[in-house]
């Protein structure tokens, strides 16, 4: 419950504050958000599985974000940033879908 409240408060704060995104992190924010979404879905599934561990969640959340941003950064340096970010989004999207399928089975038994 507290976690859901945290998400809601974060969205509201982001909409209200509307901070200026620094130019340096601007290309990485969308990818980082997608990676964090993947970690959150994984954590949610783990919670439904009863194997949730907050330490693992924190590590996977942060490492997902960092690795995704790193891949995009590396892609930018290599000149294939657009393609790599597309690939990252595709992979994370597949994972989100598979996690969402497991969550769906838990919650709706279907």
């Amino acid at each position: 419950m507290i976690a859901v409240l945290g998400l809601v408060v974060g969205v509201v704060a982001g909409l209200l504050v509307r901070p200026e995104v620094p130019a340096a992190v601007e290309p990485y924010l969308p990818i980082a958000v997608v990676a964090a979404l993947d970690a959150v879905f994984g954590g949610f599934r783990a919670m439904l599985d009863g194997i949730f561990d907050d330490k693992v969640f924190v590590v996977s959340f942060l490492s997902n974000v960092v690795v995704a941003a790193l891949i995009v950064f590396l892609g930018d340096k290599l000149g294939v940033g657009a393609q790599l970010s597309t690939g990252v989004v595709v992979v994370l999207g597949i994972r989100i879908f598979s996690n969402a399928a497991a969550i769906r089975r838990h919650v709706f038994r279907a």
Partner: protein
Amino acid sequence: MSEQDDERERGPEQPGGPEHGGAREQGAPGRAGGGRPKAAPPAARAGGLRKELPEEVPGEARAGGKTGAEAGAAHPAGQAGDRRESGSAAAPELTGRQRLINGLWPPRVTRAQLIVALLLFGLGFGLAVQVASNSETDSALRGARQEDLVRILDELDDRTQRLEDEKQGLEKQRDELENSSDQAEEARRQTIEKERQLGVLAGTVAAQGPGITMTIEDTKGTVEADMLLDAIQELRAAGAEAIQVNGVRVVAGTYLADSGNGVSVDGNKINAPYRFKVIGKPQDLEPALNIPGGVVQTLEKEQATVAVERSTKIVVDALRAAKRPDYARSSSQ
């Protein structure tokens, strides 16, 4: 109930050591694959469905003695009862739905909840910021990557260049059209002007301007065609531009002949008095007629009376039909 099943049954209820949780937390591939050896025996027992329902089915299937598909359709109340029975052997096992409800209500302030709330706060914040910055209409290019921006700029440059070329071509075409229409208009205007000038000479159009009127009264019938021809020659020599005699236009091809007591001009018989209407410079025409031994004196010697009168406006309105020459052709372009 085998030893392995007991082991597996307790598995999810374990507090979740770092290695244990880590293998499951890494995402779907690790979970579905060999990252969890303990899941192998149940998977073998329930067949292909086991793989699709990795966590939920084993407990239910074992407790109720059903296959995964039957367990999925089973009533939750019955499952709860089964679980309570099995709970005697191990800690009570919860379904995912119950875990979700337990997690949501009542709210418990634990370390895990606070940490997850903090991370989710960050996620929601980033999400909202990204959505807000992405939906700002005036900065559609803000989030674009450098290479994309360069590409867009190049495309815009190319497009600008193409449009500029097109504009130049169209302007050139417009100038050409304007010039050609101007030229055509000018040529048409010149043609009309030339037609008028030539028409005055050929007698096909009426003419007006300053000039003189000469009237020859011939009561004795002594005036002959050659005298009139002399008068016409004299007028032409003095710069007459358009001449008519008694309603007959005098042009380059005009001939005069005696005809009874009158004169025939181009076949038109005219009688005295002969009235000349001449357009030209009056100051030249009148003296040319009045010079000593000239036309006027010669005529007066023949008992004719001649009256010459200057006028600022003479209208020569006798016309000749334009006749296409039978033999002569223009040799110029």
